[in-house]
């Protein structure tokens, strides 16, 4: 039923993406603001402080917020231009329902009544769990917390998961296993004092741009930088050592390094003995991981591996950073544990200038993953299968154990169950799976099988085009709340403007649905984000992610508070594990052996080339927002294929040529970008686009068995040069739009002085 109700071209005409090029009223308008609102950028886990200029209930620009300690005014281009997502021609301002002729605007009451009827019908007919919720962590902590409670108590379904499942969930699992807690071990301030910085699977310059400056500040003190990545990223260009390993071989490298650390006795035995368990087993696992073995699997020279191990092993202080490159794999958790083993073996954690962190990608990737937004988790990072944890949350929520569902399916598994017909209804917010899940055509087929689908969004995303009802939600700047940055700093998101038309904050929509379903007693008191936060504080109390001592006022006063913060007079915890105290009951960290195994898909005669996917600095995730902002589209209008000149020459491919890339899932045709900065056996495609341009047409639904993260970073493909008439029509349209953005900028007011 949920196929798109009109042709994609017709939908595009009405709902975009169109480009917003200039502030409201154009560059000539008087944009002298009425007020400046201190808040944060919505476009990555670093959560840069920013001030939005507001005039007449419209965001008209930005002013750097230099006092905010993390970024001190620094912003990447997404932050600079984020204000253009407001006042956007594509903005949804009324509820939509699907009709035979496309979407029709309906009044709020009709859309709500229809939604609630369908939820009740599906749950009566097929059972509670046949209705699923998919959510996302660009939402505030309040909304993430609410999404969990809404699914469990509002709908009574166990099937709730979130798009963090596609983000840093491997890091979360690995961190909990090793440390008993899932948070960056340090604030970024410790990066600056580190003597060696190991960055692996993290395109810091493009996906965490502000972190670049932290790393350079360390290098100016003399720190060495090691970057592990199949591509020479902008930061790697000047690194002291670059290890362009084969996609999917990360755990072989960390095993090889641990082998050498032991062989050369670069182990901090005092630390290992006093503060860890399991080192013997971890060593046993790597005893045959010689540099030659490591070289064979990673495709790196023996001498480079040895140099890396020396640089890492001999340093006094260090910081290890990783991100999606190692996490988006079918052994994402093992890759993370391999890194943690390197850190623990040298004892360089929980001390000044010694640290470790995953670089959270999504806006609230950290906070959103802590308070019951996941299928297996309750607030405070509690475990939904732990009877003690359940008991506490039942008390806080005033429900019985029977009323609180158990563990449900993860995001990809929910999509699989929709495909098989096991799940019939879906409510989604802040998630665009048609772009972001692997195996795009599978996702499309799944969505078309839903009996009822309601989507909350501010733009009609590609996934929302499949909905039966679309409820217009609020932009980041149209609501308040808190988020938690990659560092673990809880910060305030302030409201700058009111949502337009019938659009309203996501939390209001969820609360209204719950109330209409007769769940007043659990949701009626949620009259403001702060009311939700105050319940979150209590629900998290005593959990590892303890927010009890954090209040809105305290955040404002201190420019953020690091959790855990268990009491109102507690200052917060920028650095975890001080004194070697970890969060497991015995207070120790665990070494966990990481046996090498290959990725789920490896290159062969039929598909001989590795494919890896990722982001560019100009776009955020599935692009629903950034593909609508003129300046960002102008810089990077469409995807391309990064290919080394040697591989290109083998196929007669030159810069700009059309290349057909085929995997076991599908194919797409993209222009070639011939660059020496990538391994010659590997190609790269940025993933932010939908449809014919979606990199995820090629990727597989292979999951890590523990974290259930898809293996976006490793697939095998074949490539062939083709003719330019095979470029998708959408590519030409995007090029046209980028040109329009450029020329419009050149056609500015005659006289500006």
């Amino acid at each position, binding site marked *: 039923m949920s196929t798109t109700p009109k042709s994609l071209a017709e939908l595009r005409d009405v709902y975009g993406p169109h480009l917003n090029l200039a502030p409201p009223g154009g560059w000539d308008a008087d944009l002298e603001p009425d007020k400046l609102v201190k808040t944060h950028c919505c476009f990555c886990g670093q959560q840069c402080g920013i001030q939005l200029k507001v005039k007449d209930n419209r965001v008209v620009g930005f002013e750097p917020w*230099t006092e905010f300690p993390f970024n001190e005014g620094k912003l990447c281009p997404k932050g600079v231009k984020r204000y253009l997502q407001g006042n956007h021609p594509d903005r949804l301002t009324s509820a939509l329902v699907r009709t035979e002729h496309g979407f029709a605007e309906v009044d709020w009451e009709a859309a709500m009544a229809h939604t609630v009827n369908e939820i009740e019908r599906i749950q009566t007919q097929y059972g509670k769990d046949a209705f699923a919720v998919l959510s996302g962590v660009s939402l505030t902590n309040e909304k993430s917390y609410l999404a969990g409670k809404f699914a469990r108590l509002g709908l009574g379904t166990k099937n709730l998961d979130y798009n963090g499942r596609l983000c840093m969930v491997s890091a979360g699992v690995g961190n909990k296993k090793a440390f008993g807690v899932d948070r960056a071990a340090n604030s970024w301030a410790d990066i600056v004092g580190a003597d060696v910085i190991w960055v692996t699977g993290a395109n810091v*310059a493009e996906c965490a*741009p502000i972190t670049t400056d932290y790393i350079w500040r360390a290098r100016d003190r003399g720190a060495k930088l090691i970057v592990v990545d199949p591509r020479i990223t902008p930061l790697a260009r*000047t690194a002291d050592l670059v290890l362009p390993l084969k996609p999917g071989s990360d755990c072989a490298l960390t095993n090889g390094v641990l082998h050498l650390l032991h062989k050369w006795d670069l182990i901090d035995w005092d630390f290992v003995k006093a503060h860890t368990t399991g080192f013997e087993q971890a060593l046993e696992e790597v005893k045959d991981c010689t540099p030659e073995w490591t070289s064979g699997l990673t495709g790196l020279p023996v*001498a480079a591996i040895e140099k890396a191990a020396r640089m890492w092993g001999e340093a006094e202080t260090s910081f290890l950073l990783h991100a999606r490159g190692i996490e988006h794999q079918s052994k994402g958790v093992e890759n993370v544990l391999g890194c943690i083993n390197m850190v623990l073996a040298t004892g360089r954690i929980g001390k000044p200038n010694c640290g470790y962190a995953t670089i959270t990608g999504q806006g609230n990737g950290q906070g959103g993953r802590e308070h019951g937004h996941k299928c297996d988790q309750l607030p405070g990072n509690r475990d939904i299968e732990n009877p003690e944890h359940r008991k506490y949350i039942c008390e806080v929520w005033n429900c019985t154990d029977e009323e609180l569902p158990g563990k449900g399916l993860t995001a990809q598994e929910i999509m699989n169950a929709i495909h098989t017909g096991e799940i019939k209804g879906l409510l989604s917010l802040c998630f665009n799976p048609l772009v972001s899940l692997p195996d795009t055509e599978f996702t499309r087929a799944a969505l078309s099988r839903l009996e009822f689908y309601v989507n909350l969004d501010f733009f009609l995303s590609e996934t929302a085009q499949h909905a039966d009802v679309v409820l217009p939600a609020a932009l980041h700047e149209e609501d308040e709340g808190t988020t938690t940055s990659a560092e673990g700093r809880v910060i305030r998101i302030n409201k700058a403007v009111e949502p337009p038309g019938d659009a309203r904050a996501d939390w209001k929509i969820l609360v209204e649905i719950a109330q209409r379903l007769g769940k007043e007693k659990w949701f009626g008191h949620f009259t403001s984000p702060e009311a939700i936060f105050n319940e979150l504080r209590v629900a998290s109390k005593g959990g590892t992610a303890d927010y009890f001592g954090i209040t809105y006022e305290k955040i404002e006063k201190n420019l953020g508070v690091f959790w855990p913060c268990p009491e109102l007079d507690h200052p917060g915890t920028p650095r975890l594990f001080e004194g070697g105290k970890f969060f497991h009951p015995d207070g120790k960290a665990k070494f966990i052996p990481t046996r090498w195994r290959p990725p789920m898909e490896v290159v062969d005669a039929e598909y001989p080339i590795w494919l890896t996917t990722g982001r560019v600095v100009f776009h955020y995730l599935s692009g629903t927002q950034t593909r609508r902002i003129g300046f960002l589209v102008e810089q990077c209008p469409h995807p391309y294929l990064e290919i080394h000149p040697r591989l290109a020459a083998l196929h007669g491919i030159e810069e700009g040529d059309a290349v057909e890339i085929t995997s076991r899932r599908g194919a797409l045709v993209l222009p070639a970008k011939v660059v020496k900065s990538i391994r010659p056996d590997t190609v790269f495609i940025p993933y932010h686009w939908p449809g014919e341009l979606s990199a995820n047409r090629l990727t597989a639904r292979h999951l890590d068995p523990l974290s259930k993260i898809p293996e976006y970073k490793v697939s095998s493909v074949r490539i062939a040069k083709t003719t330019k008439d095979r470029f998708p029509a959408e590519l030409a349209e995007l090029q046209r739009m980028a040109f329009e953005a450029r020329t419009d*900028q050149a056609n500015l007011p005659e006289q500006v002085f």
Partner: protein
Amino acid sequence: MVSDEYGFFIDPQRCIGCRACVGACAECGTHKGRPMIHLDEMDRMESPQTVPTVCMHCEDPICAQVCPADAIKRTDDGVVHSSQKPRCIGCENCELSCPFGVPIVFSGMEQMLKCDLCYDRTSEGLKPMCATVCPSQALLYVPKHQVAEMRRSKPVREFLVGTLKVKTRTAVMVPDSEIPLHLDAALLIEGGF
């Protein structure tokens, strides 16, 4: 007046090509929507290197020397300003003569605009917009005396353009020679790391 204590330092080694500087410059109220900064990709096939160019604010600016309408002013604080609208005749002499390629004569406007060190901001003690936002601080605006302790790269303010020596207010940072450059993944794999 812009404080003489502060200097502008361009450090291309750090540049990550993000164009936040370009986007932010365009937000300026005095040249609305038009970036004055140039951000060049050097040769993408050979290297990910990108290079930002802002005005070098020359001590004896060539653009001003060649301006037939005397439209380009340098104030006592060393800042070289955009052309004065009533005077500028859009002849493009400045654009053609600038050794760094800074001034832009906009078609349809017949007036030259250029980076003026965000005079509206810097004369009030703020940093220029680009140097405020630059995520890698490839564009750095700090008290001059702090640079030596902040950076291993060295500021240069004198350039030889043909036979002409050009002294500038803005500095370019010369990379620390100990920092290597990696450009070809194939060579790294083959042992040239």
